[in-house]
Each structure stands twice: as C-alpha cells, then as structure tokens.
C-alpha cells in the first residue's frame, strides 16, 4: 500500500471536487464533505506515520519513472509529523467552523485544496514539485483569507497575494539556479551534484530559496503580509492559516537547507549561515516588540508568530540534532498553540464582542471557557514547563548551548521574557480586573439569554481540545523525540 503517499495528496483534491459538486445540489453542504475528507486524511496520515516511524522512510516515485527523473515522494519521520499535524489541525478547525466559519461550498473546496497543497509540500522530495505545491498552498490561502465578508479581508488577501507571489517567485528563481548547474530537481540527487557545481550558482540558489521561504514563513522584515492576513481573515481561517501555512513553509526551509544544501554547505559558507542567524535574531526580537505594542488581540497573536518562527529559523541555523528536534517540536507545538489561540480569540469575540486588548478586562466572568483556554495556551506559548511550548524552546536552547552559540542562546531566552511580556498583560486583564462598563453594548445582546447566541459546543470543544493538547503534547515530547532522532540524524549526515 505504498500508493498511500500519492493518495494523501489525491484524497483532499477529491474532497475539494466533491464539495464543489455538492454545492450544485444544495448550498451550504460543503461541511460534511470536508469532514469526511479530513477524517480520511487523518486515517491516511496515521497509517503513513505508523509505517514511517515503525519501518523507516517511505519513498515512492510517481508514475514508475526512475528516481532522479520522476517525481519522488518521501515520508520520513519529519514529513510524517507534518502530515499528521496538517490532518489533525484541519479536522479540528472544521469542528470550529461548523458554526463560526464561512459556510459556502467554494470555501470548503478551497479549504481542502489548502490541505492538499500543504500535504504535497510535506511529502515531496522534488524541488520543482515543492514549488508547485507551494503555489497551490499560497493560492488557496489567499482565497481563504479573502473569504471574510468585510473589505478588510479583501485588502489583506490582496496584500498577501502580492507579497506571497514574490516569495514563491524568488523560490522558483532559486530552483532555476540550482537546476542550471546540475540538471536535476530531485532533492537527494541535487545534494550529491551541488557539491561539484559552480559555487556562485549554488550561493545564488541558496539565497533566493531561503529568502523566498522567509517571505512564506514571515520572518521579520518580510512579514508584512502576515499580521493583516491573520487579523483580516475570518477566525477559523486565521487559525488554520496561522497553524499550518507558515509551519509547512518552515518545514520546507528545514528540508531544503538540510536535504539539498546540507550541513557542509552551511559550515563552509559564513554568509549563508549569517542569513539564517540574522533573520532569526531580528525576527525574534522585532516580532516580540511589535506584539507588545499591538492593541488588537489577533494582530498581537500574528506578531507573536513572527517571533516564534524566528525561534524555529534559529534552530535551523544552529543545526545540531537537539536544535532540529526543537525546531520540529516547536513547529508542532506552535501550530497547536497559535491555532488554538486564534480560535479562542474568535470564541471570545463571538461570546463577548471583545477583540481588543483593553476589552479583555475581567473576561473570565463573561467567557469562562474562552478565558481559561486562552490562559492555558498563553502560558504554554510563554513556555512554562509541562507544556509543549516549553519542550520546543528547551530543545532549541540546549541545542544552542551545545553548539556554543551564546548570542543566540541569549536571544532565545530573552524571547521567552518578551513572550511573557505580551501574554502576561492579557492574562492579568482577563483574570484580575473588573470588566469595564463601556463594553456593555457588546454584551447586551447576550445578557438576557445567559448563553451567547453564536458560540456552539463544537467551538468550545475545539478550543478546550487545543488547550489540553498543548499540555498533553508537552508530556509526549520525550517519547516522540526518540522516534524522530533517526530521521534527524539522516538529515544531518
């Protein structure tokens, strides 16, 4: 059943088509279709992950062509982790979107297309194929951001489209430079041939690919699309996009830097290493500072992502086993935590109308579930011990210490304090302040019913599940890291 790898990409596309057809029969019928497709996707991802962690890396060449010429798909521990994350998060967000989200069928068709694109990026072992899936992911994400009914969504999507397209084009240019000198696009094949290639072309390829992916990951000076896109999108979309799109782009960065260019390239090229370290450091510091200065909760969360992805890039720059383990753990942890935070922000806004930091005063009385989940997730994001946020940052920090990157270590530890700075003020407002009176209009509609009209059980359950997962995954990290170790060692060899 090795065809399962190809089916992992094909199933969401089938689902997407089914959602469109269902829309012709009956409007607002996309949700059940999307659920069926996502459940199937979870099953496929689970099966693939079991094989990848149990029996070792799965490779698959589409169409029976030979590996360097045909498109190779590869599922190792890293890709399997991403597959599982994508499947689970997209299913989880669906539970939230049933009541909250856009309900049109084209929305769910695009939703599943995004899942297909992300899955494709995770499993591909071919650089050009990765570009194709990067574009599919990008286009689907632009359309999803635009699915809000306000003008703000449209503007944010347009900005995202323009900046994101530049990013994808830079990536393609980089792939082109790599191809010119080696005549191959297969990642493993490129890795062996780039060694003998013209160094100028290799440097150009590295720079273009890394900067292109920096745009997709939203690393500091190139992050400008991201806060608008997250804040302008509907809540369920913001959660899905923030949890998965940048995450998979960061995975792509990790994959390209280590599978294609390799450890030796980074060791021999100060400048290449400096690009990664510089991007990471600036992103961590600037992202945190910008997050502190935001007054809108969703924008604050968006800038927080800029800072957290700085940590992941820092781990990629450090490049030893511990740090890369931390990068993967933090990618998964960040996806769960940030997706959960966006959903919680959406739940809070639905229940109380509070969307700005000062409106969170005394939130625990008005929205106990929302405030509780937000508190847990915020604490996890800061990195308090049993949570997954701690595990990821711990691995990255230990990795930095092992490699003697003391400056980076200082930045990583400092970032935790900055994260504390912007989350602590929200937590303090939510739990220890009296609700202010001028918020009455927002609550009025709710006051007589006792329960908010908009929030459903599914929305609350998703939010609580995210909070529980943020803690539970922290406890599971140790066992998981032992399974991931062989994959990372192969990556670094």
């Amino acid at each position, binding site marked *: 059943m090795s065809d399962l790898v*190809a089916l992992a990409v094909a199933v969401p596309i089938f689902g997407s*088509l089914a959602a*469109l*057809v269902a829309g012709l029969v009956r409007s607002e019928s996309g949700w059940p279709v999307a659920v069926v497709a996502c459940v199937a996707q979870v099953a496929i991802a689970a099966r693939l992950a079991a094989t990848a962690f149990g029996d070792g890396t799965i490779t698959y060449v589409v*169409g*029976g062509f030979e590996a360097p010429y045909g498109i190779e798909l590869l599922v190792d521990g890293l890709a399997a982790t991403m597959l599982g994350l994508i499947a689970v998060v997209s299913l989880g967000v669906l539970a939230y979107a049933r009541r909250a989200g856009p309900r049109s069928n084209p929305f769910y068709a695009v939703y599943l297309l995004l899942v297909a694109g992300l899955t494709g990026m995770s499993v591909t072992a071919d650089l050009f194929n990765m570009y194709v899936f990067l574009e599919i992911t990008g286009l689907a994400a632009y359309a999803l951001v635009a699915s809000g009914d306000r003008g703000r969504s449209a503007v944010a999507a347009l900005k995202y489209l323009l900046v994101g397209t530049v990013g994808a084009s830079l990536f393609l240019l980089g792939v082109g430079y790599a191809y010119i000198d080696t005549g191959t696009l297969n990642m493993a094949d490129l890795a062996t041939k780039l060694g003998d290639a013209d160094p100028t072309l290799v440097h150009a390829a590295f720079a273009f690919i890394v900067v292109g992916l920096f745009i997709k990951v939203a690393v500091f000076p190139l992050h400008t699309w991201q806060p608008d896109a997250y804040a302008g999108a509907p809540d369920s979309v913001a959660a899905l996009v923030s949890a998965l799109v940048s995450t998979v782009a960061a995975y792509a960065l990790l994959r390209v830097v280590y599978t294609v260019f390799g450890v030796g390239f980074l060791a021999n090229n100060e400048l290449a290493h400096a690009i990664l370290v510089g991007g990471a450091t600036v992103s961590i510091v600037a992202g945190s500072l910008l997050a502190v200065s935001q007054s809108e909760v969703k924008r604050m969360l968006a800038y927080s992502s800029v800072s957290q992805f700085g940590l992941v890039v820092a781990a990629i720059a450090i490049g030893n086993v511990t740090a890369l383990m931390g990068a993967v753990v933090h990618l998964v942890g960040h996806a769960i935590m940030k997706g959960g935070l966006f959903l919680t922000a959406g739940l809070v806004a639905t229940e109380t109308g509070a969307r700005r930091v000062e409106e969170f005063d005394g939130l625990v009385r008005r929205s106990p579930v929302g405030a509780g989940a937000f508190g847990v997730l915020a604490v996890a994001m800061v990195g308090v011990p049993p949570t997954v946020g701690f595990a990821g940052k711990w691995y990255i920090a230990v990795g930095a210490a092992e490699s003697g990157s003391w400056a980076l270590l200082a930045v990583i530890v400092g970032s935790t304090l900055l994260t504390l700075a912007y989350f602590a003020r929200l937590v303090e407002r939510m739990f220890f302040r009296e609700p202010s009176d001028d918020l009455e209009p927002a609550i009025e509609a709710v006051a007589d019913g006792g329960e908010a009209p908009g929030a459903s059980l599914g929305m609350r359950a998703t939010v609580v599940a995210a909070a529980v997962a943020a803690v539970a995954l922290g406890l599971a990290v140790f066992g998981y890291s032992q399974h991931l170790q062989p994959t990372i060692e192969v990556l670094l060899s």
Partner: protein
Amino acid sequence: MSESASEADPEAAETADDLRSYVESPIIMATVRVVSPFVFTYGLYLMFHGANSSGGGFQGGVVVATVMLMLGIAFGIDPLREWVGESTLVLVVVAGVFAFLAIGVVTTLPPFGGGFLDYSALGFPGASKYGIEAVELFIGVVVASTITGLFFAIDAGKEGGDNE
C-alpha cells in the same frame, strides 16, 4: 453576530446599462462563425501534442477558451452565460480534474497493480503516450472552462454584482 447587510445597490444597476460593452456587429459575428471552428481545432491539436512535442493542456486549453471569449464578444456575454449555465461550467471543471485523478488512481487498482499515474501498467502498447495525452486533454478541459468562468466572473463584476 452575523451582519449580512444585503448590498443591492439600485444605482449600480442603472449605471450598468451605460457600461454595456456589447455591440451587435454583422462583421464580428460572421468572422467569429468562420474562425471559431479553426481555433477550436487548433486548441485540440495543441492539447494532443502535449505528449511528444511542444504544446499541452495549458496552451491548448487557453486557445479553446478563446472560442468562448469570441462567442461572448460576438453574440453577447449574457446570452452566452445563460446558454452555458454556471453549474455546467462547475461540473465541467470538476469532471476534468476528477478524470485526471481517476487516471492516476486507476493504474493502482488490482487488475493493473502499478503505481500512481503509472500508465504503462495499463498494459496496451503506447499506454504511456496515450495516458499522457488523456491527462493533457483533461488539463485542457479544466483550463478552458476555468478561463471561461473567469471571463464570466469579470463580466459580472462590471455590473457591480457578484455571481456567487
């Protein structure tokens, strides 16, 4: 909190009459009648040549879509849209993508037992070539209908409406 203010703007509908781009011209209609079968054939030719020479579904699909554009310009876009129908267009796109995927999956099924998109597993001579041509044809169908849909959507946009 659903704020669904319907945005039916009466003024937009009035000004739309002034923006009407359709001019009935016997010259254009006659030309389109003569040219379109050739353009359509050329589009098909490009699609079928995707396997062994330059050409392919994307180029061919665009050329086929220009037939629809020409028909729209010659005979009016609104009548053409009514004649085609929104749902037909969606169905054609879906059918095209579905057929592409189906070819990929069929080769993995028991009687053939090959890999995904492994045409040679189908077992007849030249299966790989015909498989690629079939896929190019379906890509062409998808591209042509998508471009036609975009053309309709842009046209609907000029009247200030939304064709959802």
